[in-house]
């Protein structure tokens, strides 16, 4: 039997049962659309999360304190439990800068403080950042400048403020040269940062930067940092440089067993791949959930095909009595199931892409850095999966049809 004829017979049978066909296609297309939406949304989420990283230069090497022996979660544990690691000294940073593949570095420490301008008070996060932060992190300056190494060395009371602080305190007026008060101490504004938006939920516009040493000496009375960011010159040597930093710090901190490190060196690339893994994992989990709806659609196909086969017992018997082989009948019903599911796939993909685009419009409308992407593999997966569902769930009803005895089927009494 020619495939063209099979296709004609099967599709005209489906057209005769328009409502049933449409409902079955809808049921299946919901599952298919969900798969496309989830994959696309996963891509959008990934682009959004990874977009947050764009504020950091890929050449940045991050060194952060951690509780020794706590594995990967060490630095998070130190923050959560309030254990303070005091071993990362300012001198460590100065030694790291001397490494051959590192051009710049700064150490940092943060603190919550109330700042004041005229009658206004505001609780903000104070970033104690070294003077080289402007270059390492490639900070965007709206007006004025970032503070200098000389100012940091002299523990100057200078401040570089976030966009919202400037807006709230000074409005349209210039902020440069004005003084704000931190815990009663007067700080001169030297520059304003461009509007940054949020990074990982943290409002990057409601912060102020003061030199690390100034924060340590004027407010905290310490000489250690929470972390160091260093700029790597030759990225091809990134891994070696990372090891150099680790060796240097172990040597300086008298550590022989790497498991007892009181610091952790991370490259931006590692952070990026960790985030990709997390987002990928979430996407995969959601796809697995959505596959249940595909399964439901598949069972629906089996059900409808069984009904169809039962209704058309006479037709099947007649076809067989006129010379159709079992496999002709089998294929007729399989092709019918596959046309149903493939149509469901196509409709599902179309709706999936449309809804993904609406999500993209909504997300960007809310100011999220969401990207619209429907990977080819999502479409191939959706259509391929739905057609296999047709084959898999259509095979039993089709076999039932093929095995019908023509005499029984055409007997009218």
């Amino acid at each position, binding site marked *: *039997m*020619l495939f063209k*004829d099979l296709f004609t*017979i099967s599709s005209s049978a489906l057209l*005769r049962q328009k409502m049933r066909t449409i409902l079955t296609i809808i049921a299946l297309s919901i599952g298919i659309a969900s798969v496309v939406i989830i994959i696309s949304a996963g891509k959008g989420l990934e682009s959004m999360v990874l977009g947050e990283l764009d504020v950091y230069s890929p050449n940045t090497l991050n060194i952060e304190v951690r509780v020794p022996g706590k594995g990967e979660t060490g630095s998070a544990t130190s923050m959560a439990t309030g254990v303070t690691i005091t071993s990362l000294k300012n001198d460590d940073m100065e030694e790291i800068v001397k490494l051959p593949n590192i051009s710049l570095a700064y150490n940092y420490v943060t603190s919550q403080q109330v700042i004041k301008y005229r009658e206004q008070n505001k609780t903000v996060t104070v970033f104690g950042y070294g003077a080289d932060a402007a270059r390492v992190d490639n900070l965007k300056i709206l007006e004025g400048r970032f503070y200098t190494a000389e100012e940091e060395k002299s523990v100057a009371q200078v401040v570089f403020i976030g966009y919202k602080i400037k807006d709230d305190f000074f409005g349209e007026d210039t902020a440069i040269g004005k003084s704000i008060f931190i815990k009663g101490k007067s700080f001169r504004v030297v520059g304003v940062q461009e509007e940054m938006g949020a990074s990982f939920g943290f409002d990057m516009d409601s912060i102020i930067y003061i030199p690390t040493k100034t924060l340590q000496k004027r407010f905290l009375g310490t000489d250690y940092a929470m972390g160091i960011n260093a700029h790597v010159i030759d990225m091809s040597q990134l891994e070696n440089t990372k090891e150099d930093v680790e060796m240097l710090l172990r040597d300086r901190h008298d550590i022989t067993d790497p498991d007892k490190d009181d610091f952790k060196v991370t490259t931006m690339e590692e952070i990026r791949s960790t985030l990709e893994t997390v987002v990928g994992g979430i996407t995969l989990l959601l796809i697995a959930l959505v596959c249940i709806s595909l399964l439901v659609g598949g069972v629906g196909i089996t059900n409808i095909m069984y009904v169809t086969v039962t209704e058309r017992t*006479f*037709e099947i018997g*007649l*076809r*067989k*009595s*006129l*010379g*159709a*082989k*079992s*496999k*002709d009948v089998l294929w007729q019903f399989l092709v019918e199931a596959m046309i149903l599911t493939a149509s469901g796939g196509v409709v599902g993909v179309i709706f999936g892409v449309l809804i993904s685009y609406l999500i993209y419009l909504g997300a960007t409308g809310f100011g999220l850095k969401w990207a619209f992407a429907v990977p080819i593999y999502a479409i191939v997966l959706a259509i391929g999966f739905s057609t296999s569902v047709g084959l898999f769930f259509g095979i039993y009803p089709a076999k039932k049809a093929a095995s019908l005895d*023509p*005499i029984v089927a*055409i007997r*009218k009494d």
Partner: protein
Amino acid sequence: MSKLIEVKDLKKEYGNDEVITKILHGLTFDIDKGEFVSIMGPSGSGKSTLMHILGFLDTLSEGQFLFEGRDVSKLEDDELADMRSSKIGFVFQAFNLLNRSTTLENVMLPLLYTDTPKKERVKRATDLLNQVGLGHRLDYTPNKLSGGEKQRVAIARALVNDPDIIFADEPTGNLDSKSGLQVMKILQDLNEKGHSIILVTHEKYTAEHAKRIIMLKDGLIEYDQPVEHRQIADENGTLIK
């Protein structure tokens, strides 16, 4: 004349382990090419079962059935399907047309399973519908046709594969007498042109349109003899003789 069908001591029983129903108890007869034979008998005589076996729809339990010298009992399912599509044409009492397909599609149906090109299928089906006087009803669906017209479509369908033999199972059973006679006229004409025909019926009058009657009773042949006073139908549905 060469033998078309040779049946020797054919037996058929149905059933499972508990109950076995014997339908045919050992039939022996031959049918030559070009014959017009009626298989007659009351209901329960086994005539339908015999027709199913002769029409490759069912298999025998014991005995021998040769078709053109080939032992049919040794054929696989797919080979039987091939025989059905190439050797025989069926005309049923209830017409057995697909009600949602057109007349033309119904007649072309058996050709679907023979790899005949579409163009050829349309041509043959159209020619045959013209021959049975329904050339103007090609795109009608069967529910718009009268009973007689339906049976003529069924006859066109039975002929479309150019079969060696036509089986007609109570072809006039659902028709008024005039339409019935028109159908018998077509069958007689086909026989005149050389087609072999087996007519299954319980009516003596209908059976007498054939040239020979095999009378079944309780699964056995009661008699097998030529028709002495043959009925001849004309195309208007009136009896000539």
